[in-house]
């Protein structure tokens, strides 16, 4: 029953239709979480006792950084499913994730830089956390460039999946960089096993924005996947019927 459902979901016309139905709802949920996150984060949350109001950059910076890793794992995971089982839909999701992950990584880097200037006195340092996150951006851009360089979609999908898998090595390095090396970047305050050392009035907007960014990714990856499917299936009967209706 479940396997049959997966087979159905993996069929391009069905996925195209279902994704189209989900996109507006996901977008609305994203908007609601974003409004709640912005209101609690910019208006209700108190200033930090050390960093004043500058810490509010965190509500963009931290969720963006989390997403930069999450999207990479989705991309590498979907890419390997495409490699192993030759699932077309997995290939589509993998390559559709790359530009979104690149955007999140860019956001994490740029907001970190803007936050670093008033707090550390510098826009950039070559420390472990910042450097490994920059490498992540190059991995995303490498995946996009490699995919664009190969005409045959299936070959492109396999090549980019292998590149993405090799780059997975970078993920634990980013995560543990603040513990393995002596860096300027602060350690984690939320994702540790004991009680988070963060005021609950700051934690709530952070989590709201984290959910909002997840919903954003879900919305945009479905939109991109629909485009990718149209492009791959442009000579099939169902796409021809679709454009004529």
């Amino acid at each position, binding site marked *: 029953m479940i396997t049959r459902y997966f087979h159905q979901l993996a069929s391009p016309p069905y996925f195209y239709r279902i994704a189209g139905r989900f996109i507006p709802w996901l977008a609305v949920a994203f908007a609601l979480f974003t409004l709640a996150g912005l209101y609690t984060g*910019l*208006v209700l949350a108190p*200033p930090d006792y050390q960093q*004043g*109001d*500058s810490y*509010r*950059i965190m509500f*963009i*910076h931290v969720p*963006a950084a989390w997403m930069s890793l999450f999207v990479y794992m989705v991309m590498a995971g979907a890419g390997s499913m495409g490699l192993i089982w030759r699932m077309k839909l997995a290939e589509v999701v993998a390559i559709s994730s790359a*530009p*979104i992950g690149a*955007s999140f990584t*860019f*956001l994490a880097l*740029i*907001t970190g830089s*803007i*936050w670093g*200037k*008033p707090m550390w006195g510098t826009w950039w340092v070559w420390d472990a956390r910042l450097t490994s996150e920059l490498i992540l951006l190059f991995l995303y851009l490498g995946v996009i460039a490699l995919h664009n360089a190969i005409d045959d979609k299936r070959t492109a999908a396999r090549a980019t999946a292998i590149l993405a898998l090799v780059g997975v090595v970078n993920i634990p390095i980013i995560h543990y960089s603040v513990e393995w090396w002596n860096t300027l970047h602060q350690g984690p305050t939320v994702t540790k096993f004991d009680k988070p050392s963060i005021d609950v009035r700051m934690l709530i907007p952070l989590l709201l924005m984290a959910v909002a960014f997840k919903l*954003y990714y879900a*919305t*945009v990856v479905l*939109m*991109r996947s*629909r*485009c990718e499917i*149209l*492009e791959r299936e*442009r000579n099939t009967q169902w*796409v*021809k019927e*679709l*454009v*004529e209706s």
Partner: protein
Amino acid sequence: MSGLSEFLHMGGYAFYVWTSYGIALVVLLATALSPIRQRRKLLSGIARSVRRNRAQ
């Protein structure tokens, strides 16, 4: 200082905070708009080639 201008002032960090939120808005908007534009282009391109094939 009124409530609004105090809010916009961000305790002296207005430039850093609002630049960050502004860039986030631009990047997320651009990333979401690109597939919308691409889909429109794809659909009209495919429709054109279907019509051309029919005419032949």
